[in-house]
């Protein structure tokens, strides 16, 4: 019973916050775009790439992508490590 109350309360609070944000956020389709305009205008000269998304991923925000590749690598390492064969298991 308490569990249901807790769930309900959390839902109400978070839901209200999310919907409030959705309503108060600036109109859809008319973003503030100071940074992005700069990127669109300068991508071709600075990075030489035609695909602005790729340019952002690998050049403007390359460090993020480094982190992202690291996340993937970490997860792979972790999965392989956790599902390793254990010594006490019979080798099939």
């Amino acid at each position, binding site marked *: 019973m308490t569990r249901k109350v807790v769930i309900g309360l959390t839902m109400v609070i978070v839901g209200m916050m999310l919907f409030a944000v959705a309503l108060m956020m600036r109109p859809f389709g008319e973003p503030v775009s100071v940074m992005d305009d700069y990127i669109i*205008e300068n991508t*071709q*000269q*600075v*990075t*030489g*790439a*035609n*695909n602005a*998304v*790729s*340019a952002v*991923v*690998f*050049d403007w925000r*390359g*460090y993020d*992508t*480094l982190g992202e*590749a*690291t996340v*993937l*690598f970490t*997860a*792979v*390492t972790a*999965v*392989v490590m956790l*599902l390793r064969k254990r010594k006490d298991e019979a080798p*099939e």
Partner: protein
Amino acid sequence: MMSKVVRTITRLMTPAILVFGLYVIMHGHVTSGGGFQGGAVFASAAALLLVAFGSDRIKDHMRIPDLTVISASGALVFIGAGFAGIATTFFYNLFVGSAIFGHVPEFGPAHEDIWTGGVIPIMNIGVALNVVAGLTAVMVVMAITSSKTGDGE
């Protein structure tokens, strides 16, 4: 091990998927796509093989240590590309205007030209290696584990 129909179609489809994945990777800086997306396409071929032929046959061809090494070396290529511009700053795009991938397009609509993007194509390849090997390793490991406990497949 799936039925014969599935296996035949898998045989036919796999090369096509691989070629398409390669295209997505190599044209990442020109058209939509890139290392991550292409890598995922590539890995889906591995998933298809895994489903069609079962983990017992696949695990002899894709060994986990090898995949880990490929994954790590892909990441190293990526970092190496980042370090290439270290003389100015980390991740400085060194190759713009140079001989390799060095064409600089004009602002505005452009034709496809694969020799653009500076260091980006190289990073794309590195990331793709990382993703392909990583995702494949995860799937193979999970498949092996679940078939061992007897509830997989």
